[in-house]
Each structure stands twice: as C-alpha cells, then as structure tokens.
C-alpha cells in the first residue's frame, strides 16, 4: 500500500491561509525533500491553478534563482493528480484530471503503492482527513496569529486525534510538527 501525506501551513490561531507562510531556504529544502519522497502530488483545483499560473513559466524561461528553476522543473516531472469537477482538461505536463469521488480515486492510487503528497487547501484536506485516508500529517506551525482566514481542516465533522511523530523548529520560528492519525 502507498502512503498519503497531507502537508499544511497553520498559524497559532488555526488558520491555514497559504499567504501566511514565512518562505525561506529551510522551508524550500523541506519542500524539496518531501517532493523527493513522493511519487506524485495531489491537488484540489484552486491550489493546482495557483501553482500552474506561476511554476511552468519559471521552468520554461529558466530565469531567476537557480533553486527556484530546479524546483519548477522537479514540479514539471512529478505526476500531478488534480481533483476537479469543473475543469475539463489540465495542460501542465504530467498532470492528470481526476473526476471521480475522492473516496474512490485516492484508494485506487494508493493500491498502486504510490506515496502521495497533498499540498492541501482546506477543502481537499478536510475531505481526505474525514475519509480517514491520510497516513501522515505535516503541519508547519507559523509564529503568527492570523486573526482571520480558513480554519485548518475546518470541514471535518469529527474530532481528529493525532499522535506526534516528529518536531523540527525552523530558523524562521516556524515549527514542523508531524503526526499520524490515532485509529
């Protein structure tokens, strides 16, 4: 069986707005390591479109800091699975549109033994958590009180009990916390 890793940023007041992230080299290295660990990336439509609007251009132009170009090319090569009922096609290379319900598509990918990384928006993250499909949670806790924004896994209906498996403080003051679900 494969593994599903859900990775999200969260502020101290539980907000998971992706704009509340302190981007630095350590965070970048972590992202690279996670990508290397995974066989594919899983997206909801919004995050996919957000990434598609910036990364392929960096990759094809080859301009900018080398580490960003390398990262963009790594993203190009990774299989990208996109959940969307609205989209009819996806044009970023190695992208695959998934039209079926999450509860069927994800177990199918997992049965192929893939390690999948979800850079979750609140919607898909909540769905995967609620369905019990997540094997590892990685929360990057930002040293920020956001004051407003979407709540971390705000769509879950039941309390989610977790077991802490790792911690790593970053120089930025963010702390990476890893958990597995208590089943």
């Amino acid at each position, binding site marked *: 069986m494969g593994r599903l890793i859900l990775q999200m940023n*969260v*502020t*101290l*007041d*539980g*907000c998971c707005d992706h704009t*509340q992230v302190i981007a630095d080299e350590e965070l970048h290295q972590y992202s690279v390591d996670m990508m290397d660990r995974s066989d594919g990336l899983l997206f909801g439509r919004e995050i996919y479109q957000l990434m598609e609007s910036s990364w392929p251009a960096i990759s094809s132009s080859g301009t900018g800091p080398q580490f960003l170009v390398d990262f963009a090319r790594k993203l190009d090569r990774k299989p990208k699975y996109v959940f969307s009922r609205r989209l009819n096609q996806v044009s970023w290379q190695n992208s695959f549109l998934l039209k079926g319900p999450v509860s069927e598509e994800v177990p199918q990918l997992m049965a192929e033994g893939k390690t999948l990384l979800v850079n979750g928006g609140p919607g898909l993250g909540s769905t995967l*958590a609620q369905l019990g499909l997540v094997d590892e949670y990685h*929360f990057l*806790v930002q*040293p*920020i*009180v*956001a*004051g*407003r924004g979407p*709540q*971390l*896994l*705000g*769509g*879950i*209906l*039941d*309390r*989610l*009990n*977790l*077991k*802490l498996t790792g*911690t790593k*403080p970053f120089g930025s*003051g*963010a*702390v990476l*916390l890893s*958990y597995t679900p208590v089943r």
Partner: protein
Amino acid sequence: MRKLVLFMHVSLDGYASDLNGGLDWIPYNEELEKYAEEVVAEVGSPVYGHTTYRMMENYWPTVLDNPNASRHDMEHAKWLQDVKKIVISGSMDIVEWNNTMLIKDNIAEEIKALKEQPGKNLVIFGSPGAAKTLLELGLIDEYLLTICPVILGGGKSAFHGDGEKIRLKLLSSRTLKSGIIAARYELEK
C-alpha cells in the same frame, strides 16, 4: 518591567475548548501538571476572565478545608489564596476571594500600571474571553501555548483578535511525551 503572559492549552486548529465547551481533549497527566507548576513558578499575579475566575473561586478555597487533598493541591490552594489575583470583567461588580482585584474599565491603563509594579509576571490562565480583550489592546507580551495533538473542527477560538495579524518570535519549544508541544513566543518587536 514585568510582562503579561498568556498561558493556554490549544488544539492544532486554534481552539481553547470544543463545541460543547469541553476540555477532555487535553492530555492532562503528571508531565503536564509538572509543566504547569513551572509556569506557576513565574507568576506574580494570575489573570482571569470572569468564567475562569468563578471556577477557580468556587473550587480552590474548598481544597484548603479538605483533609484528603493531595500535597500538590494543598500547596497550590494556599498559594492561590494568598497571591494577588486579577479579574477582568465588565459584568461583575464585586469579587469576594481574598486579595483579588477586579478590573472593569480602563483595562489598558490598569494593566500597564500593574506591569510597572515590581514582581513576577502577570499570567493569563485560559480565559479566552479576557485573552481576546487583552490581545486586541496589544497588552500581551508573551504566549505560552501548549499545542495539543488534536484537531477539534470547531469550538471556542483561543485568541481571536480583531483580525489584525500578529507576528511572533519563537523563543523555545519543548515536546511532552503525550505529544503536546509547549512553545513560548514573544511579540516581534
């Protein structure tokens, strides 16, 4: 100058209590009790909102008369009895517990004056309502958060301010065996 510190148990999604006001998701054990004792050691005055104050006032003085109380509880009860306690509440008129100061109005001025006094820190225990007020007034200097390994999916927000973003600096973090992360932050200057 002494500091105003917020000490609160929070879920990963930033709640202080669940949808029913419950706290059973906090893995309370000897280690957390020990950690709380360390926090208490730096307290000059505990600060409460009215709900937490009522709970404390109704419970701790009874411990003093309880011959079966544990040594830890008895010591804590004695300490609470004597220490100067601060209550922030617009709705209360009198406080009867020994050595208790009620702040109804002019909260910022009163807290600033208390900070100027010598002694150990002012520490808010739980009290999300009072914490919100103090947060909005920009009076909280440090955050002592015990982040519990649970996502509640709803409840009472631990310290929702007025929507202003607050940038903090991580001072230290420590892992308890129960999976709690005890982290200390200060306001970014």
